[in-house]
């Protein structure tokens, strides 16, 4: 339990603080992404994002300021001056938002408000509980940092990364489980990875947002190959053009659809990814023959 917490997700450091009457801690897979060396205690600590958490009224802005509504009633994004405000609701928790989060224009500073009536008896609280954590990451990435995509990320014994990308049902978790336990192999995620560029290299990072396999690990690897997954009767690799690879990655990715500049950046970044990696379609049988097939090809 702490009033201060620092997370490192995909190389982005997020400092969380709270008022004295609101204890906070990470939960679930996010615990693996807590900075254990407590960098927040150092005077030279410079996180990319600072977020304050407090009990609050979680007021929903007027409808005229609505920027984006995904349509399921779980969260909405509003314009707040030059910044943004997320509002979170859940049917079982009543009509009022149980949480709200306001950020400045580049999402480097924010404030999370939590409704005491909902969370007061369930402290400590994780201020960035899903989907706020992932929404924040998607928006941070779209400001020139990278892209998050649906995919399982495998690191080979030689340290190179392979991304198995696909939408729901394509076989991401199945593929991750097939690689599980292979000598020298690390699995970064069975559901979501973040891609970022550093020099000429694309790096693939594990994230806390796992799938059915519950595989979520902090770590990264240089990305060498991307396979677009589909189930098949036999293992088969087929080439995919650069243009289609960008489109397929975009379809597997997360982009801020309300933000033109963010969308432009996302597409440009995915072009860089495709130019630096080998992209193919992988039809695979859901057994260990697929692992051997990928290794041999």
């Amino acid at each position: 339990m702490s009033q201060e917490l620092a997370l490192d997700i995909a190389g982005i450091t997020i400092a969380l603080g709270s008022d004295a009457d609101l204890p906070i801690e990470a939960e679930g897979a996010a615990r693996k992404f807590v900075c254990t060396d407590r960098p927040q205690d150092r005077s030279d600590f410079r996180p990319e994002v600072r977020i304050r958490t407090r009990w609050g009224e979680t007021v929903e802005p007027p409808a005229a300021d609505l920027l984006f509504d995904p349509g399921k009633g779980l969260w909405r994004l509003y314009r707040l001056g030059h910044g943004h405000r997320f509002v979170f609701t859940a049917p079982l928790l009543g009509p009022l938002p149980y949480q709200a989060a306001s950020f400045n224009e580049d999402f480097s500073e924010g404030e999370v408000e939590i409704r005491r009536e909902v969370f007061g008896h369930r402290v400590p609280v994780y201020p960035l509980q899903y989907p706020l954590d992932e929404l924040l990451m998607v928006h941070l990435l779209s400001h020139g940092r990278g892209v998050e995509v649906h995919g399982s990320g495998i690191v080979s014994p030689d340290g190179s990364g392979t991304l198995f990308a696909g939408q729901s049902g394509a076989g991401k978790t199945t593929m991750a489980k097939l690689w599980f336990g292979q000598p020298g192999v690390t699995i970064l995620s069975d559901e979501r990875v973040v891609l970022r560029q550093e020099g000429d290299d694309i790096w693939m990072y594990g994230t806390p947002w796992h799938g059915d396999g519950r595989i979520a690990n902090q770590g990264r690897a240089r990305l060498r190959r991307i396979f677009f997954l589909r189930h098949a009767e036999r293992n088969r690799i087929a080439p995919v053009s650069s243009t289609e690879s960008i489109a397929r990655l975009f379809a597997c990715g997360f982009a801020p659809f309300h933000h033109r500049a963010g969308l432009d950046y996302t597409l440009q970044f995915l072009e860089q990814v495709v130019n630096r990696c080998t992209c193919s379609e992988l039809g695979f049988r859901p057994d260990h023959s697929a692992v051997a097939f990928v290794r041999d090809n």
Partner: protein
Amino acid sequence: MSPDEPPDPGSGRKPYEKPTLSEVALRPEEAVLGNCKTMGVAGPAEGDCTALGGCMTFGS
């Protein structure tokens, strides 16, 4: 160069390829966040979550 003309071997240019149109499906429910693949409900509303907001499985 028209589609029927053979490429000039000395030009270094690729032969003309007729443009093709292919569709890549974008699933709106997967492109935006806010659902839980297992429960269909966001974290805090679902009692089976590890904590108030601890989704066990994130929506694809």
